[in-house]
């Protein structure tokens, strides 16, 4: 709970509501694996400061889509649980949860972080669908980065289940085969408040921000997905400056995986 313009005034005075530097993430940042090992094929819990997010991977077999008969598929779903914040309500997916799902989805799908060809079992006949579900446990800002990190960590943790006769999946017995990762995408979100850029916002900062840019990077530091959010515009130079900041911080986040 902050007075009007409190966050903006602090930014002008070169500080933040919790005293952090603009380019400083909260502590601790942790990634725990296999948090739902009995149920999910892969799972992880990510903590960034007070924000906690879990992600789990389930796999299913299906018929490939006609336009890509030799490829498997993924599906990303994020649900803003009312358990995790007084702001979230029960009911159909909110627009914020849809945006979150789609940004994480793009970071993995469009970047071809997974080798989709290797997710095809038999061309035109059977493919794997990799389903990633993301849930905040405690939503205290920067769900984008935490969710993206949790999704990748859960994928990294996942093993294909064994497949019996007639393509029946034996979910109780996982194989030792990991998913076909070509690289691990990592995302970092930068906010613009006044003339300042900052990372890892708390919720009050998100509400006060003019604009937001989420940038996902490959292991070599190439950009593989982006999303501008917020109601205000950004100049070319601002976008580039935000990307530069995101690149540095994403490289740090990657070390946590």
């Amino acid at each position, binding site marked *: 709970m902050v007075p009007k313009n409190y966050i903006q005034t602090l930014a002008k005075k070169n500080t933040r509501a919790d005293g952090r530097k603009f380019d400083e993430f909260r502590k601790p940042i942790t990634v725990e694996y296999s948090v*739902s090992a009995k*149920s*999910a094929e892969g799972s992880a819990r990510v903590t960034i400061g007070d924000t906690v997010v879990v992600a789990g991977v389930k796999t299913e077999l299906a018929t490939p889509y006609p336009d890509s008969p030799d490829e498997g598929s993924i599906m990303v779903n994020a649900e803003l649980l*009312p358990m995790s914040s007084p702001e979230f309500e029960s009911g159909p997916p909110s627009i914020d949860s849809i945006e979150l799902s789609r940004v994480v989805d793009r970071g993995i799908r469009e970047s071809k972080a997974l080798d989709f060809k290797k997710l095809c079992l038999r061309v035109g006949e059977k493919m794997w669908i990799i389903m990633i579900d993301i849930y905040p*446990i405690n939503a205290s800002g920067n769900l984008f980065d935490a969710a993206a990190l949790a999704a990748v960590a859960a994928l990294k943790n996942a093993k294909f289940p064994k497949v019996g006769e007639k393509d029946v999946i034996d979910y109780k017995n996982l194989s030792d085969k990991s998913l076909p990762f070509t690289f691990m995408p990592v995302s970092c979100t930068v906010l613009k408040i006044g003339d300042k850029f900052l990372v890892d916002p708390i919720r009050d900062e998100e509400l006060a921000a003019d604009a937001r840019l989420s940038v996902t990077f490959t292991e070599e530091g190439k950009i593989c997905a982006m999303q501008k959010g917020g109601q205000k515009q950004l100049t070319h130079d601002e976008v580039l400056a935000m990307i530069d900041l995101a690149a540095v911080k994403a490289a740090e986040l990657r070390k946590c995986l």
Partner: protein
Amino acid sequence: MTYIRTDGRKVNDLRPMEAKVGVIKNARGSAMFKIGKTIAYAAVYGPREMHPKFMQNVERGTLRCNYNMMAFSGSGNRVRPGPSRRSKEIGLVTQNALAPVIDLTEYPKTVVDVYIELLQTDAGTRCAGICAASLALADAGFKMKDLVCAVSCGLVGDTPVLDLDYSEEAYEGGAVDVPMAMIPRTGEITLMQLDGVISREQLQRAMELAREGCQKIYEVQKEALRAKFSSMEVEAGETGVSSPPSKGNREA
């Protein structure tokens, strides 16, 4: 034929438990309760204004419980997200299991929301959810007659057992699942469901097992609550010696 438990438990043994209070910072009260491989989180929000208005009770606040399995937490295929008939019914019976102990007379016209989320499941999810929810309500500081403890009992084959896991519920020779919740001090029952065919005598035996089991759960719950509220004191005791707060986990 007598059923021998595959995990080596005796018929009256619970699976190992772990409880932790105060795990969700945004919530007024919260807890995690784990029994075997079933992990439930619960968070309490409110009292907050009840909408729509015609649902408001001017005498006291309303308790509302919501149960949900995370999409990846089932034992087979992905669980479709969103409410199902099953999850809605469990929300209702959870509400009824907790309502007898909680006093909301200080908060007319409001609603107290309890959200239960299952991270991983191996049967007994509604009971684990109730155990977590009861801790979360106490953590939030609500006045309560007692905590509520819940566990399933039932039959595997012809043998009355306590705390069935998924493999036991799916036992080829048949199984009966009887989820129960109790007010541990008085032994009064606040949740009672039954799924399967059982004789009166067998049921009575199973209910006795549940009553015993609830006492053990009660100890774990109380320990977890005390651990949260005494940790600060221990940390900076008069001597200035800092010792780590108890994790509040204990094996049964």
